[in-house]
């Protein structure tokens, strides 16, 4: 470990961290934006969900490197290729959580909202989505953490991220650089995860400690609804 390498190359490390953060954060956010309407549809019309789930499972089985490569002819060796790939993977972990979150809203709560004169849209936005938020954010956390980590694979096709430190470190036979890359990827993932925990607490202030714990991993959501992927 050559500690002096870190301060003398900090501006480059920081730039790569920013690029990695962009790829790893924007993708799951787009994934969330697509998952919400799809999830609402799947939660409402039940027949729509099983085929969606099969589709999600199939897409999720595709190795990240292969998916990036398949996108090259259409989008080139650009950020877009990696962002689309990571968006697709994020979608696969977020969408099931949106559906399960919405389905988990207790029926009496929905009935009460209807009885109070709420229309379907207003009920969805002001009652169902807020109650589903902890489960949706649990999915988003998985999407963000794995996207941040997976973005480094994009370096193999030349899309700049912290993966550069791995590949450059290998070519120069310089472990310090690889350690820094590993540390920064994990640190970035942890920071994003903590931010999302903060967001969830801010959005669901009513959730007490016990309820919140239940919201994170409720009985109806098996953890493998959002299986992790790291390559």
């Amino acid at each position, binding site marked *: 470990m050559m500690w002096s390498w870190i301060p003398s190359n900090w501006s480059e490390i920081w730039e790569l961290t920013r690029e990695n953060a962009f790829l790893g954060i924007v993708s799951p956010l787009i994934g969330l934006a697509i998952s919400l309407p799809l999830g609402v549809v799947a939660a409402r019309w039940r027949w729509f969900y099983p085929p969606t789930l099969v589709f999600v*499972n199939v897409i999720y089985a595709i190795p990240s490197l292969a998916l990036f490569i398949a996108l090259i002819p259409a989008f080139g060796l650009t950020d877009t290729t990696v962002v689309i790939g990571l968006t697709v993977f994020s979608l696969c972990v977020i969408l099931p959580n949106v559906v399960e979150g919405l389905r988990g809203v207790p029926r009496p709560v929905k009935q009460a909202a209807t009885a109070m004169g709420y229309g379907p849209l207003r009920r969805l936005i002001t009652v169902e989505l807020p109650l589903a938020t902890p489960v949706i954010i649990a999915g988003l956390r998985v999407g963000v953490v794995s996207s941040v980590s997976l973005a480094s694979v994009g370096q193999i096709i030349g899309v700049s991220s912290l993966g550069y430190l791995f590949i450059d470190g290998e070519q120069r036979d310089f472990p310090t650089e690889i350690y820094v890359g590993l540390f920064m990827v994990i640190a970035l993932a942890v920071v994003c995860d903590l931010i999302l925990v903060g967001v969830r607490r801010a959005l669901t202030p009513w959730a007490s400690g016990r309820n919140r714990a239940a919201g994170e991993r409720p009985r109806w959501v098996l953890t493998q609804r959002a299986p*992790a992927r790291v390559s």
Partner: protein
Amino acid sequence: MSFFSYAWDWVTTDAHWHGSGSIPQQLVAHLGYSGLPLLIAALIAIPLGVLIGHTGRGAVLVVNLANAWRAIPTLGLLILLAVYFGFTLFTWLIPLVVLAIPPILVNVYEGVAGVDPGVKDAAKGMGMTPWQQVVKVEVPIALPLILVGLRTGAIFVVATATIAAYIGLGGLGRFIIDGLANTQYGPVAGGALLVVILALLVLGLFSLLSRLLVPAGLRGAGRDNQ
């Protein structure tokens, strides 16, 4: 030209099917490089997961391990080991085994821990020994989730064995990494297509296994867990 036309042209070229480093050879190699770590990981993770699920001890550790696992960049880990130890059996095998354990472990644990307490009581009440309770009741009921864990692990090793070609591992990833190094998109696309097909075959295999192995009474539950 699209990805598929590049990939198709390359895969259907007769010369790529013969000689050393041909498609059949690398396909078999890829199966070996994925199968071996998966097997070792399963042999470690299944008994451990059953033990933790049955006793409830170490549950917090398992869940946290599975969460931390997502943040690990496998490419970096593989490269780090390769820089220190060169490319050896252990440089690729150990990370693949270690990283395939968490998804299997957490699912086996969740499956066994999630068995209805009433069912466990009934097993006990019928005079089953703890060993019989585990083997005859808890594991069969947990089987759908155990298979989900093995499937996730299998898909993981297939994908990571591809990336490990970067540090010198053979298999289908060779076509991708060598093609990128020579800036030829043909083998890159062809290799990627073959990896995707392999991953989908693995997925199909597990859906077949769950049909064959999961007890009839649990089949609905198995579908739910996917």
